[in-house]
């Protein structure tokens, strides 16, 4: 049926956590279709990440390196993924549906004239995948019927793979002609945070519109710091400018699935629920007992955040200190 080519994201010489989820997805899809399992890394220097990727049992790790590939651009990366897929006889190409994956894989699919199964949550067969649609309210089964298939996997649905200590052969592939087609990376505007990334945290504490003001999120930050948690927010809170938009959890923001999700002053709009209802344990703190969030919370506390958060902080400090 052909080989499996999985693009692994890397940064600063190491695989990104999303790449470890990509490897778990890779194993599932490789089991379903057979052939060779190949990993692909692209960048200006990916040797460290490639050495790491070689320990996960793939048949081969391919690297494409050039100074012009330092910053990800769909215009330069997609032709490389598509060309390597053809050269390697890969009939399934994929990775995780991060911001990069969501930008990259449809362009790769366009170049390969292949069907795309985007943001899937499960591999059902070699060409059949399940994915959530309609703000997480429908599970859809898709089949790709084109000779090649492109698939992106939702990071939170595939756990991080463990290395098996293999020593897969690593080989360099020539970058070929790199043409950005009129696109240029200018800069990344980012806020450095000491807390874990939203999509990778074991605990997430989110605030909603009911927090009223951005400065009140300091109380959520304090709780995050005690718990080692990531801070999130509802779309309403982001739209109101209380916190940066990259903290948004929901259909239009990030999908998270931590062990514990604490929703503070979030009523529970459909589009927010779509981003967090895969969490293992959900806690809702809201003054309105009728808020929709309570319909899926494992533990609901009907209380104003102004009263609940200081109490929660001192309780947590007490047990963490003990």
């Amino acid at each position: 049926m052909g080989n499996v080519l999985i693009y692994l994201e890397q940064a600063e010489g190491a695989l990104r956590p999303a790449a470890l989820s990509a490897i778990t997805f890779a194993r599932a899809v490789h089991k379903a279709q057979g052939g060779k399992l190949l990993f692909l890394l692209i960048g200006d220097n990916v040797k460290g990440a490639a050495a790491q990727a070689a320990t996960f049992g793939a048949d081969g790790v391919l690297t494409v390196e050039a100074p012009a590939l330092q910053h990800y651009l769909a215009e330069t990366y997609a032709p490389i993924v598509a060309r390597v897929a053809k050269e390697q006889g890969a009939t399934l190409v994929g990775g995780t549906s991060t911001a990069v994956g969501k930008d990259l894989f449809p362009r790769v699919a366009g170049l390969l004239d292949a069907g795309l199964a985007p943001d899937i949550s499960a591999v059902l067969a070699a060409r059949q995948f399940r994915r959530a649609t309609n703000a997480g309210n429908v599970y859809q089964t898709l089949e790709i019927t084109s000779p090649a298939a492109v698939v992106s996997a939702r990071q939170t649905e595939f756990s991080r793979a463990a290395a098996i200590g293999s020593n897969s052969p690593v080989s360099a592939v020539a970058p070929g002609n790199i043409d950005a087609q009129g696109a240029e990376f200018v800069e990344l505007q980012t806020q450095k945070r000491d807390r874990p990334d939203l999509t990778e945290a074991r605990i997430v504490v989110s605030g909603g519109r009911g927090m009223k003001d951005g400065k009140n999120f300091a109380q959520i930050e304090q709780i995050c710091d005690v718990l080692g948690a990531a801070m999130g927010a509802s779309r309403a809170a982001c739209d109101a400018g209380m916190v940066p938009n990259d903290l948004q959890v929901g259909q239009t923001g990030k999908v998270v699935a931590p062990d514990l999700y604490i929703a503070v002053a979030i009523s529970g709009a459909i589009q927010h629920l779509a981003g967090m209802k895969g969490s293992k344990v959900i806690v809702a703190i809201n003054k309105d007992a009728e808020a929709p969030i309570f319909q899926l919370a494992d533990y609901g506390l009907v209380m104003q955040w102004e009263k609940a958060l200081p109490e929660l902080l001192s309780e947590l400090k007490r047990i963490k200190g003990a």
Partner: protein
Amino acid sequence: MKILVTAKRIPDPGQKIKLKGNALDLSAANWQLNQFDEYAVEAALRLTEDGAAPATRQGAVTVASLGPADVQQQLRSALAMGADKAIRVEAKDEELDAVIVAKTLEKLVRRDQPDLVLMGKLAADNEGNDVGQRLAALLGWPQATFACSIQVVDGGKALLVGREVDNGVEIKKVRLPAVVTVDLRIIAPQAVKNGRTAANFAYPEGPRYASLKGIRAAKDKPIEALTLSGLGVSTALQVKTHGSELPPARQAGKKIASVHELVEKLRSEAKVL
């Protein structure tokens, strides 16, 4: 600037989802313009007008959709907002996939040669997030997805686009012609800078409402009707939907009386602390 905006009609996301067998039952759906596409129409209008004097438009905005005759309603609403003309390509929703849609748009682009294709970053029903990037690949054009800001630069030859990415906002420059897909914040008061509207001009938040005058004018604006076969697009599906199901419902849990009790439950019962 000549802009092609693509628009999809979707069932009202607020409606309860019903299944008939293993397919979505859309018989009672309230169809509406996909919100992200509505935002793309708004962004296109902001790019082609002086915000302080919106009647003095420069450039042209065409809105295109694939779908049955009913889609005219959504196209008329985009025309009422201020778009100049519309194109409807006859198709049944269930006979389309992203490959067919992108190839259809490719034909329209090659025929009409817009400077920019604008669309929503995804349709809020099937959440494919596929067509824009695929279209850019077919055309060999640069792409800027998930745009939260657009600034016209280089004397109208390029765009500086702010993109929502996982860890912040990426600024990407794309030469025109290009494909841009828009995210929610594109309708913020100062998200679109066309170099003509005064730099300190602020729009009201959100897409504009159609004025009565706009609604009347929309009735006289042309909607060109095309077909897939007329455009020479193959209708073989590469992505098939085999069925839909509702996810298992999550049970509401218990109400807790105090913060102390909550923390104890999380420790001893849920074991997550």
